[in-house]
């Protein structure tokens, strides 16, 4: 079946989104025969690419302050609703009260025994008890969510990033049941009244679709680092896990790292330096 353009567009790694950045990703050229505009895809030369994207989080460098900055940067730029935000009554009259259990989050803080429930240990070193652990989508090599999705609305790109097509998702939430990391959120309601300031560079979502971390695919395409990396003061590094010369591989080589629920075989691409 022919895949529609939007989807092909999302699938091609390193293509900058329309209207983003200095160099347009799609330029319109005149066809000789009819004079009609034809869209041409062109790869942004500055785009960051990898065979398999991965992330290394240095837990020693993460503080409560950095955690807050990271979550804020990610959620604000991706228009993730904040249910604590006071709704503008004029713009969104008669907004019903929120149920905080139905919140949406892409990256958030957990305690060690919640982030790594299978590594729970009554004699765990004390400093780990108090450390904030950032958790997000693991962009698994074998993603159970992709396998479960009945419409391929969630899919793994060639460079390993697991993405969501918000316009194809039917909201069956099979992916949420399939994800062993609780990485996915469902829009139980229209999220827009709870977005303080809409960032026009990223789409808002409608009610009834699932969303999650996209490893800032839209930023990588522009040659920029993900928001969490920028806000992390060096605590988070992303790079190519398949490239032995990459910074992430150097970090994995130098430090003892762990991954969440490794025994399930989903092969998470997010590593934690202990």
């Amino acid at each position, binding site marked *: 079946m022919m895949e529609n353009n939007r989807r092909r567009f999302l699938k091609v790694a390193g293509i900058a989104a329309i209207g983003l950045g200095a160099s347009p990703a799609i330029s319109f050229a005149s066809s000789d025969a009819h004079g009609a505009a034809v869209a041409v895809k062109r790869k942004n030369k500055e785009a960051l690419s990898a065979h398999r994207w991965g992330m290394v989080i240095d837990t020693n460098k993460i503080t409560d302050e950095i955690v807050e900055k990271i979550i804020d940067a990610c959620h604000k730029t991706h228009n993730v609703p904040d249910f604590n935000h006071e709704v503008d009554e004029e713009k969104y009259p008669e907004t019903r009260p929120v149920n905080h259990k139905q919140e949406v989050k892409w990256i958030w803080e957990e305690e060690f025994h919640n982030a790594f429930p299978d590594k729970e240990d009554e004699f765990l070193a004390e400093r780990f008890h108090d450390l904030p652990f950032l958790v997000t989508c693991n962009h698994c090599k074998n993603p159970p969510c992709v396998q479960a999705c009945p419409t391929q609305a969630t899919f793994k790109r060639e460079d390993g990033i697991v993405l969501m097509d918000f316009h194809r998702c039917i909201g069956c939430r099979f992916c949420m049941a399939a994800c062993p990391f609780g990485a996915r959120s469902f829009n139980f309601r229209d999220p827009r009244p709870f977005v303080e300031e809409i960032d026009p560079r990223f789409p808002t979502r409608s009610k*009834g679709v699932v969303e999650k971390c996209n490893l800032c695919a839209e930023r990588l395409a522009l040659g920029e680092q993900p928001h969490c990396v920028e806000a992390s003061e060096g605590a988070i590094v992303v790079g190519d896990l398949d490239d032995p010369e990459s910074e992430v591989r150097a970090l994995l080589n130098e430090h003892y790292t762990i991954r969440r629920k490794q025994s399930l075989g989903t092969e998470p691409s997010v590593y934690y330096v202990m």
Partner: protein
Amino acid sequence: MLEIAIKGSKNYWLWLVFLLVVMGAGTIAYLDQFMNGLMTTGMSRDVSWGFYIANFTFLVGVAAGGVMVVIPYYLHNYEKFHRITILGEFLAVGALIMCLLFIVVDLGQPIRMLNVLLYPSPKSMLFYDMLVLNGYLFLNIVIGWKVLEAERNQVEPPSWTKPLIYLSIPFAIGIHTVTAYLYCGLPGRGFWLTAILAPRFLASAFAAGPAFLIILCYIIRKFTKFDPGWDAMQTLSKIVCWAIIANLFFFLCEVFVVYYSNIPGHKVHIQYLLFGYHGYTALVPWMWTSLTLMATGAIFLLIPQLRNNKTLLPISCAMIFFGAWIDKGLGMISGGFVPSPLHHVTEYGPTGPEIMITLGVYATGFLVITILYKLATQVKEEVRG
């Protein structure tokens, strides 16, 4: 044949009006959910499936249970089931319509539903579930209708219905097996990650479906001149008895494995359901009620004197039916989500609108079953008279 459905007694019409009122109330509740999203339900980030999917799962079982009359009659020529076979098939039709409606009301974007067909995804179990559920519905409508029509005209059913009837048997097993596969293939959900889930689903289905059929036979005997036959009901009750015993046995196996192996990720869910977890006990009374109902019902059906008691039999069947409903409808889905993969406990309970929509779906199914049963019983009365 459909003209039979518009000629009925006062009671028949009162019942239909009642169902239509419930359907109307459910529709109003659904319109609100459609406009505002699933925020109107008790579901959450941690418990992302609730009452709708639970009832869907249970009713797939009721639909599959119809095969317990089809197999003896068509494969083993068990003549006593001749009169009730059509009832089993039409019950399956009503149950499947409810199943499909429960899926639709659970979707966040129901208008995009056809994406499942536009982008077929053979790695997703939901894809196969859609195929077998619709296939089984189609088979039962065609078979039920053609066989009944032939009976009315007092001729043999067309010969091409035979292969369809044989095909419907693996489909019946298939719908509940694939529905179990939706759950038991998910790596991070210890409660469902068990090979006995599909057999357990089938066992409870083969108890709940025929148990409901027996209750329907009682209702038919009370309100129509058609008698499904006491012998047939007795045989059915033996099927219910052994199926519910198998279900309880499978659950016992489950309990043994999780407690003896003591693996936390698997044990914690059954612990939550049976004894509560960190002070969260919402489902504990329900689960014990369910186990008590199923076990008592099994004992009542096992002892011949009690099983032969015409007053007690429908009560025993109702106990088993409701026990199985709690087990699958409340425990099976919530139990898999609590605690969450990050070991947080978020409990779940359906909201008022969620219950209203659920009742609306049930009313729709009962409307279909009522009309189909009206046709079946009237035709059989005509033929006999």
